């Protein structure tokens, strides 16, 4: 194996090592924490705890496009600047959390009502729960039981779970989604790894377009229009650019190398 590849693997192992000082290394989230988003700026000003958003819980029910295109949640934490009034008007969290929408036969609890009383505190704390020892109604372990397992991230193979029918993410929210024709199937394609001996990347365009649509990735995340003109480096991806916009935060993380670098090594 090429010395440079060995060095890359060694670096990943060092970064993943639990013996590395916490000041240097970010703590790797546990499977139930992976994808968690904490939103605080607005709520703390009003005396409420920051909102803890469990991404795994929601991605099991909705496609990426429903939330990040139709509802309009930004891809970066805090960029949407959601206010309670937005939720009350039926947008953002309030698009589903309105006390009317049904999920598994039960109404989805209402987010941010105008006339909340002391009796509503428990309901408020279902979202405004940062720092509170609250037990999730839907325990991750119970949720994860039927899923095919993976090594990193949430420890779940979401793609296979969908193929097996364990999850059926909805692609439409009444009142916000636009009725669209179904997307024509996009072909998967290979991307050169640009490093001798490193397996090439097979990019599943099909899977990404079914979950995301086109406008979620282009041009905001992938902006180059000329094929091959944009250079994607592992450094920029680790910084959260291109693939790193999702694959380190909510989708399987970057240390799961061979899920992308999946072709046999090519001699160059």
């Amino acid at each position: 194996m090429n010395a440079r590849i060995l060095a890359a693997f060694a670096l990943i192992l060092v970064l993943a090592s639990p013996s590395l000082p916490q000041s240097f290394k970010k703590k790797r989230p546990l499977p139930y924490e992976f994808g968690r988003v904490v939103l605080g700026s607005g709520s703390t000003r009003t005396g409420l705890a920051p909102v803890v958003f469990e991404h795994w819980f929601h991605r099991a029910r909705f496609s990426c496009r429903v939330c990040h295109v139709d509802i309009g949640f930004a891809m970066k934490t805090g960029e949407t600047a959601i206010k309670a009034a937005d939720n009350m008007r039926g947008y953002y969290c309030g698009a589903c959390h309105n006390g009317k929408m049904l999920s598994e036969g039960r109404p989805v609890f209402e987010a941010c009502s105008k006339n909340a009383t002391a009796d509503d505190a428990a309901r408020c704390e279902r979202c405004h729960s940062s720092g509170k020892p609250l037990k999730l109604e839907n325990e991750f372990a119970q949720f994860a039981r039927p899923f095919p397992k993976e090594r990193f991230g949430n420890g779940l193979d979401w793609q296979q779970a969908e193929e097996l029918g364990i999850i059926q993410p909805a692609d439409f929210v009444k009142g916000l989604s636009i009725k669209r024709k179904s997307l024509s199937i996009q072909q998967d394609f290979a991307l050169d790894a640009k490093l001798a001996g490193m397996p090439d990347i097979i990019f599943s365009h099909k899977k990404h377009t079914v979950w995301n649509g086109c406008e979620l990735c282009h041009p905001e995340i992938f902006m180059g229009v000329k094929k091959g003109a944009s250079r994607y480096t592992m450094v920029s991806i680790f910084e959260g650019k291109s693939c790193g916009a999702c694959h380190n935060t909510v989708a399987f993380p970057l240390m799961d190398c061979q899920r992308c670098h999946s072709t046999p090594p090519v001699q160059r």
Partner: protein
Amino acid sequence: MVNGKTTAPLLLTCLVLCCLLAAAEPMWAGAATAEPENWQKEFDDVCSKTQDAMIFSQQELKALVDRCDALEPQIARLDETRKKVYLKRLQQCRGLYSYVLESKKQESKK
């Protein structure tokens, strides 16, 4: 009996209140309940074609970008929440059409 001096200000107050009520968007008017307005019909029509972006001609894509541009000032006049939601959505939809148009222009130069 009500005389003219008291009736006029009373009527004026009622008129002002009616105008304010008509103009205000009720807090409970959820996304799903309101009748689609003209801008919304146009938005739904323009942005419902994103999955076909690759098969449109350059002229069709240009027309879609222009329609997005025409929508922007209308959405910018909406209340704070809808402005935030729909300007972001419009930006995504316009961005895609413009992106595909640009890539088609580059391809045709080859």
